[in-house]
């Protein structure tokens, strides 16, 4: 009879392996196989989020950067520096997403932290605050 592993143990293992430099594809395949085998595919998003938390605790930060246009290298560097200042992480991995609906500015999603300076967000805030 298989013992049900807690999500914390799973994410801790995966994060540790990733931090140790194991092959990412192999780890992802193992995780996917485990979740399918244990019928816990619904926990996928939570597992991914927890892995990001674990990586952050180990000094590796995965940052999702959303903008309307492709970011220049200087801007990416500036964002990386900003994230390092706020998280004290040794390694920053940026994943850039292009979303024209944000109109302008940048949105940075970090584990447990978000910075949204997009024009779309500002307009949404304007709508929310001014509407009666």
């Amino acid at each position, binding site marked *: 009879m298989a013992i049900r592993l807690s999500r914390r143990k799973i994410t801790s293992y995966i994060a540790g392996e990733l931090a140790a430099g194991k092959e990412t594809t192999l780890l992802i395949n193992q995780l996917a196989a485990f979740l399918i085998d244990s019928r816990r595919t619904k926990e996928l998003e939570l597992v991914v989020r927890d892995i990001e938390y674990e990586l952050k605790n180990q000094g590796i930060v995965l940052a999702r950067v959303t*903008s*309307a*246009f492709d970011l220049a290298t200087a801007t990416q560097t500036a*964002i990386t520096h900003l994230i390092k200042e706020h998280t004290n992480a040794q390694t920053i991995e940026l994943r850039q997403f292009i979303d024209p609906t944000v109109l302008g*500015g*940048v949105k940075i999603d970090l584990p447990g932290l978000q910075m949204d300076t997009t*024009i*779309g967000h500002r*307009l949404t805030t304007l709508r929310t605050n001014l509407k009666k």
Partner: protein
Amino acid sequence: MEILRQFAAPETVNANGDLFSALGINWMMLIFQIVAFLLLVALLGKFVYPWLIKSVDERQDKINAASKAASEAQASAADAETRVEKLLKKARVEAADIVATAKIESASALAASEEKAKKRSEQIVADAQDEIQKEVIAAKIALHNETIELVALATEKVVGKVVNTKIDETLISDALKAVK
């Protein structure tokens, strides 16, 4: 004339013995008739007259009673007529009072209903004004929200066309500086 001669002739008187005989009156028969008459009178007085008198008296009493009753009835009728007249007069007065009271009550009821209708109409007008005021406020709010929405949409459209890579880089740079 012959009869007069007989009365005048002394022989005629003498021939019959006395005057009664001359007149054709029989003493015995006369006495008998007197006795019979007296007897008849006595019998009548004894048996018939009292009964007859009694009947007459009774009849008289009845007539008197009837007369008295008629008089009483007439008096009673007059009294009744008087009472009826009084009752009619009283009834007329009461009817007049009732009519007057009814008029007063109907007037007061009319005034009360008018007052109630006036208050009701004022209440309806006030409610309608409140409703209109609420609708105006709701319309103003809706207009305000729609204006904000339109401004936001217009801003999105304008910004979407105006912002280019360079402006975006500037925006991001300013934002990062502001965060630092």
